[in-house]
C-alpha cells in the first residue's frame, strides 16, 4: 500500500456544457480563458472544465453563463481534469460518465425551451399551469390473483 497525495488538493472542478445555436464549445472556452485569471480551464468537445477554488470557479462560471444562460449548463465533477484514473488518454474508449452526459444532452434542448418559457411567463406575470398528476390506483387483490394465476405453471 502506498501513500496517496491528491494532485489538486482543496480544488473544485466543474463541467460546463453548451447546447446553443449561437456559440460553440470553442467560443465558450475562449471566453472562459479571457476571464480565467489563472484558474485552470480545459476545453472539451462539449464545453470546458474549470478547476480552482470554489470562489474562482463560481466567478468564471457566472461570467461565462451570462453569454447564454438558458443554453449553458453546469455540473460538479469529482476528479480533476486529466486524472489518469479517468482520462481517456490513458484508458481508451469513452470516459466513464460520458454515456450519461450523452443521453442527457439529447434532452437538454427541452430543458432550454422550458427555461425560456418559464422566464417569459415570469416577465409577463403569468403562471404556468402544471398538468394534474393521474391518481395511482392501488392494484385490486382479485386482479393480482388473476395475474399470479396466469404467470403460474
Amino acid at each position: 500500500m502506498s501513500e496517496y497525495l491528491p494532485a489538486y488538493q482543496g480544488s473544485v472542478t466543474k463541467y460546463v456544457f453548451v447546447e446553443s445555436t449561437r456559440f460553440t464549445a470553442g467560443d465558450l472556452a475562449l471566453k472562459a480563458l479571457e476571464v480565467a485569471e489563472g484558474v485552470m480551464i480545459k476545453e472539451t468537445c462539449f464545453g470546458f472544465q474549470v478547476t480552482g477554488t470554489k470562489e474562482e470557479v463560481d466567478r468564471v462560471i457566472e461570467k461565462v453563463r451570462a453569454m447564454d444562460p438558458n443554453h449553458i449548463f453546469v455540473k460538479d465533477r469529482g476528479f480533476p481534469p486529466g486524472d489518469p484514473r479517468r482520462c481517456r488518454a490513458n484508458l481508451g474508449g469513452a470516459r466513464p460518465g460520458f454515456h450519461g452526459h450523452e443521453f442527457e444532452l439529447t434532452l437538454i434542448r427541452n430543458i432550454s425551451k422550458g427555461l425560456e418559457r418559464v422566464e417569459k411567463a415570469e416577465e409577463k406575470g403569468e403562471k404556468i399551469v402544471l398538468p394534474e398528476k393521474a391518481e395511482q390506483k392501488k392494484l385490486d387483490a382479485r386482479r393480482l390473483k388473476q395475474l399470479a394465476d396466469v404467470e403460474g405453471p
Partner: protein
Amino acid sequence: MAKVFIYPTTSLILSDMVSRFGHEPLGAAIGIRERIQTPGIESPPLQVTPEEPKKGLRYAAVEVPSGVRGRMAVVGPLIDQAQAAIIVNDADLAFGCMGCSRTNELVKYLVRKRGIPVLELTYPRTEEEGVTFVSSIKNFLKSLGEEKP
C-alpha cells in the same frame, strides 16, 4: 439554501437545475471529490477503501453484496444530509457502472423513508414536457427556500 439530493446522482440536468435556482445539489461528484481530495492510502480508482463497505453496513445488511455497500458508503451520507430530494424515475443511465439496480432501489427507498420533501419526475421527451419539468423543479425549490431561508 437547501441541500438537495439528486437521483440519478450523476445527472447533469438535475445538478444544473438545483444550483441554477440557488440551492446546493448533492450528487455522486460531491462524494467522490471528498475521497479524491483527501490524502491517505492509495486505493484506486475511486479511493474507495476497504473501510467503505463497513460504513455501508449502516444502510445495507451484511448479506448484501459489497458493491451495494460500497456504493452506499458514497451515496448514503449524502442522503443523510439532504434536506430535500429530486428523483427522476425513468433514468436508465443510473444502471451500469454508475450503480446497480439494487443500489438504486435502496437509494430511492431511503430517500422516501427519510420524510424530506421529494419531487418525482420523468425525463422530458418533448418541449412541452420540458416546460413542465423546469416549472415543477422551480416551484419545488422555491417552496424549500420559503421553508428554510
